[in-house]
């Protein structure tokens, strides 16, 4: 790496994880640079969620490390995780509390997050009008948006989303995609998004990594890989790579 170049915003180094003797993530090396909307692609069961759980400290790698802005998650968890907002799997909230109350609890754990910031993020995701309703009355799409609001709360530089459009209807998927693009361009937020929806990812991401059987098959710039004019679709590329 060039001495003057900033370190990747998120980097995994030789990340490995096994469950019951089976390698789920195998020597994974990923680099996400500031400003990326990075698509982490792979079929179900290939190790995407396990990788994200490790990136957020929910589970622990057998070996390897995760660096956030050059800070080791293992050695300095608090400083590293402060740069990250995340939704891991389905967004889960206390359903007997309102959307606002849920965010207020989380705001207590992030220094400097004010009540006006809570209202601001609820407005950003379009939940301002439902903030005082209990979460048990929310649709899945609304919970997903509340999850994004929660991830945005402490103004992180990186947001990690695990299958953010899973279970959503076409309108919900469109809204989430638009929200991600808006946040990436207007708020300068870097995204790391796992998905198995290749067409969606081609529209959303500037860089991708493809994972199969826990190993990174390839990583690169979407426009370079598919041709500037979109000569080849991500879907075609994916099936060629995974077939071989």
């Amino acid at each position, binding site marked *: 790496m060039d001495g003057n170049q900033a370190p990747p915003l998120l980097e995994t180094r030789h990340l490995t994880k096994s469950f019951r003797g089976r390698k789920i993530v195998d020597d994974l090396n990923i680099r996400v640079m500031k400003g990326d909307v990075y698509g982490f692609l792979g079929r179900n069961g290939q190790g995407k969620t396990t990788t994200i*759980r490790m990136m*957020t*400290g*929910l*589970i*622990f790698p057998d070996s390897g490390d995760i660096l956030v802005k050059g800070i080791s998650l293992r050695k300095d*968890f*608090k*400083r590293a*995780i*402060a740069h*990250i*907002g*995340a939704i*891991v*799997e*389905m967004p*889960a*909230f*206390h359903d*007997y*509390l309102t959307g606002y*109350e*849920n965010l207020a*609890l*989380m705001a*207590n*754990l*992030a220094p400097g997050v004010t009540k006006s910031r809570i209202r601001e993020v609820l407005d950003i995701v379009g939940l301002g009008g439902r903030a005082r309703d209990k979460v048990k009355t929310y649709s899945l799409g609304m919970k997903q948006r509340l999850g994004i609001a*929660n991830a945005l709360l*402490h103004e992180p530089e990186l947001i990690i989303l695990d299958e953010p459009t899973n279970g959503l209807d076409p309108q919900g998927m469109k809204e989430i995609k638009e929200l991600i693009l808006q946040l990436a361009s207007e708020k300068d937020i870097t995204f790391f998004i796992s998905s198995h929806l290749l067409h969606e990812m081609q529209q959303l991401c500037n860089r991708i990594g493809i994972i199969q059987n826990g190993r990174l098959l390839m990583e690169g710039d979407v426009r370079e890989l598919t041709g500037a004019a979109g000569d080849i679709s991500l879907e075609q590329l994916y099936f060629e790579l995974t077939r071989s």
Partner: protein
Amino acid sequence: MMNLLGNELYKLFKTRKLYVFAAIMIIVLVLNLFRYVPGDPMVVWTFKHGQSVPLNTLDLLTQFMIIFIPILLGDSVTNEYRRGTLKLPLLRPVHRSELLGAKLAAMLVFIVIMAAFYVAAAYAVGTYYLGWGDGTEYAGRVFSTAEGIRLTLAAVALLLFPYAVYGLFVTAIAVLAGNMSLTIISALVIMTIALNLNAVEAVAPWSLAYQAAYYHEAFISDPDWNLALQRTGVLALYAVILALFSFRMFRKKEILY
């Protein structure tokens, strides 16, 4: 840590648990006292007046705690893990030991609130059915009202210690268990077995169930300081072992939901 505790208490007061438990306490007290006749040979209690009720019915408080604490911790630890809400604070700059510490501190607050409510409810329900009376009866003696209230408060304050250690025991189960029912059932089954072993002299001093029922008796009325020290030592030993185990397991726990 204080913010985490604030969050845990906010959730505790927002759920209906606290109020349902309080209502259950009142109902059970009423059911026990509305037909109670002092001197009835079929009843183990012998007190005659309302001011004696809290001190002489602490076994009821212990039974409530044995049931309520697993429900509380099964929800705040195991159920939150299962429902995926445990990961919400863990995705913030929060160490796991801080989170578990906050949950344990909230449990202590819960125990204090429940115990205080029980004393108040037992005085109120007892006085309603039996009248206030001239003195507090306990262990075959009659104490002045002021002394009776002091003894009652001291006994309840002392029992907070075994209840807290029992909470640590349930926490150890809750951290390991995969669902809330397993936490509650395991804790209740083990405590029920332990309560039935209280009659076995060799086992009783080491039994958490025995301590939860009789810990205070070594201190109040006619103190036996050797026995008090022995009981405190046993509980302290359990507290240290269970706390170390729970924190270690929670730090290593893989959050899969």
